[in-house]
């Protein structure tokens, strides 16, 4: 509240004050466009700064000066950097991400498939990990400092301390090689049935759940614990609510904001940060796709992947902020 409004007495409300949520979404939307633009410049400059260009890295030891020159001429790599950037930008503004320099396939089509795969895996991991983490968090508050709390803590800490590829290898060793009950490699492809797909991604999903579980669980626990000492929790206890009901009905809703934030961060990680898990399980996701493209400096693909990754981060963070406002009546109904 500004001082002038209070002094004037008449609350002449600006749209910003009347529709805080809509304004926020609108502002964030504009800001994210600017951010995406900045990201595209950064990635372009970054790949440009890497040693070697597409023509020389792609053919490697079998290249000759003539073939390199031919490829450069065909792709227009001999033009100035700025021209090439704006050429690319012009296409993207019209929704055209161009074709991959290496495979000569449409980037949008390829990215579509890979993004679909990434979202599928991330989605399944999230469906299992988020409720599980929050439940375990509430459980460990319920049993705080007693045996179940300690067990949950130790196991989840152990899982987060192990590198994800190691967890992956352990799961492969026991469930695929020794017991032979899980599918490996987790390569999904077109024309695979839904059930078959779920079966195929069981191991990478389990790995990802173990990796993200601890972070969310511990944040839930800490956030709830911090409201447990407030007066209304004491009231809830005094009016005879069971400890579990008090946690679920009174403590958890008030601890939502930080939990939502950490969940959003982990979801973003599940989509954009799992290249190692993709490689270990031979899963055709976005991460591997982008790494392959960077290796040979396949600019249109790198740019498209970079933008999508940035967009996922921005979107999930925006969503987290909006949900935090929705979850908090004080922000939802500003005076």
């Amino acid at each position, binding site marked *: 509240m500004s001082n002038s409004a209070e002094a004037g007495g008449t609350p002449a409300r600006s749209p910003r004050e009347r529709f805080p949520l809509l304004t926020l979404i609108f502002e964030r939307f504009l800001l994210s466009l600017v951010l995406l633009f900045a990201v595209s410049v950064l990635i372009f400059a970054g790949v440009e700064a890497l040693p070697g260009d597409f023509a020389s890295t792609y053919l490697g*030891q079998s290249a*000759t000066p003539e073939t390199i020159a031919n490829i450069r001429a065909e792709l227009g790599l001999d033009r100035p950097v700025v021209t090439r950037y704006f050429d690319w930008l012009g296409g993207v503004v019209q929704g055209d991400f161009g074709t*991959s320099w*290496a495979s000569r396939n449409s980037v949008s089509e390829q990215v579509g498939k890979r993004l679909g795969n990434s979202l599928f895996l991330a989605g399944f991991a999230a469906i299992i990990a988020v409720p599980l983490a929050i439940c375990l968090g509430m459980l460990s508050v319920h049993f705080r400092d007693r045996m179940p709390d300690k067990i949950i803590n130790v196991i989840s800490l152990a899982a987060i301390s192990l590198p994800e590829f190691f967890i992956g290898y352990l799961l*492969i060793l026991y469930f695929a090689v020794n017991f032979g009950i899980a599918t490996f490699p987790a390569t999904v492809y077109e024309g695979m049935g839904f059930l078959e797909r779920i079966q195929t991604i069981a191991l990478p999903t389990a790995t990802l759940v173990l990796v993200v579980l601890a972070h969310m669980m511990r944040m839930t626990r800490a956030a709830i614990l911090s409201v447990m000492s407030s007066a209304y929790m004491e009231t809830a206890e005094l009016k005879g609510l069971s400890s579990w009901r008090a946690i679920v009905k009174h403590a958890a809703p008030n601890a939502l904001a930080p939990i939502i934030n950490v969940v959003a961060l982990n979801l973003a990680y599940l989509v954009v940060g799992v290249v190692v898990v993709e490689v*270990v399980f031979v899963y055709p996701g976005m991460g591997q796709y982008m790494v392959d493209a960077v290796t040979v400096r396949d600019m249109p693909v790198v740019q498209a992947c970079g933008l999508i990754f940035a967009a996922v981060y921005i979107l999930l963070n925006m969503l987290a902020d909006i949900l935090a406002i929705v979850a908090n009546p004080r922000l939802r109904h500003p005076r």
Partner: protein
Amino acid sequence: MNDFTKYLAGRVTAGGMNRREFMGRAMAAGLTLTAAGNLFATSAAAQTPKKGGTLKLGLEGGAATDSIDPAKATSQVMFAAVRSWGDTLVETHPQTRAPIPSLAESWAPSADAKTWTFKIRKGVQFHDGKEMTTDDVVATLKRHSDSKTESGAAGVMKSITSIENKGGDLVVTLDSGNADLPAIFTDYHLVIQPNGGIDKPTAGVGTGPYKVKSFEPGVRMTFEKNPNDWRSDRGYVDSVEIITMNDATARIAALSSGQVQFINRVDPKTVPLLTRASTVQLLTTSGGGHYVFIMHCDKAPFDNNDLRMALKYAIDREEMVKRILGGYGKVGNDFPINDTYALFPEGIEQRSYDPDKAAFHYKKSGHSGSVLLRTSEVAFPGAVDASVLFQQSAKKAGIDIEIKREPGDGYWSNVWNVQPFSASYWGSRATQDQFYSGAYLSTADWNDTRFKNETFDKLLISARGELDEKKRKDMYREMAMLVRDEGGTILPMFNDFVNAGTKKLMGYVSDIGNDMSNGYVASRVWFDA
């Protein structure tokens, strides 16, 4: 029959060993000559290929950037793929590497080896049902050699001046004589496509034993049997699936759990663990690929041959083969050719680790202070360890090598072929001529040691046009000696191709031409039910 000879017999039955190798090893194990000969015959006779089944290959070296266009095929995965769906004019013999007919039935050079006439096989159908003609062959070769080409084979095709269809025969003219032209046509980029693949380079239509069914770059490629294959001695399995697996542990897990039947690039360090699984067999082949430390002969301090010699004597080759390759390799002799090449010059004295000679040459060179060696994990597997081993063995000769570890990304553009002393590797080439022309001729594109020697250049050119094999072999000996004693290459080891398969996989041929049975693994193997 003791266990070892049983093992040897098994390898013959599986097609992995030729007679010479078998006899040598069986007799070393204490068998008499006749006994060994009989054993070879019975084991080889047991080998009647069975048809059917799905072959799954888990291969390293694929990426989302792979293209099915053979001109752009560079990765291991695309190499094996191209060999499965396409045919070249000429193939190489798996054990001698001599050119043998494929889509070309026969060939003959002119007396100066400048003009070559190839008879093209008749009655061969492409996957799309069209009959292959000499015009298709001409168009294919032109696409890989014209001035607009972006082909990986452009380098080896450079000397071709004209490609013509003369009355149904293919006539190729070169700018100078080349006795190795048939060997050049074994290059996997040069698979014959309908109209040369000009209309649709990525169609994946060829004359090979398998038709491309689906292709997701960097993920998976599937093939089905070509029912109209012109050859009956290949393509035994019904369908083939290549899965790109760039993680070494993932490949091993997939093989030992039986989800794939063949994997490539087994890390020598993991071989003992892998062979512990009773269902797995190791498939190794010697190859012409090698790991090197390269010095620029025209840059100080490496412009001094005594310093180069000192460093060549200061490396412990045996130790490197043992530690870096886990024994799966052969020692090198400072020239890039070994017995996997036709016309290999035998009997050149093996250079070995000799700290005294190293110290002698080092003193004579007058160099003082350390020499800077740049290395990186990407230079070759174990390159950083190998550099440290080199540093330690050189230290005993009083030579101080300083190691600088470079980042992997950009190593091939910023360090290799740029810095005066670095670690690197080379794959095998079809012929000695191709190798020397690509990396040792004064004007070569990739002369990464800056080796400029007039005598060598002259020998290379005249050996190229020489049709008399004996004379040629003598010239190659002379060239090898020049590179070995004056060049900038320190060549500690040739690496074997280490692959692995399930025990049910039969018919694997240890082809010295290249990795994965020279890429033909899918068309050569079959399953023992």
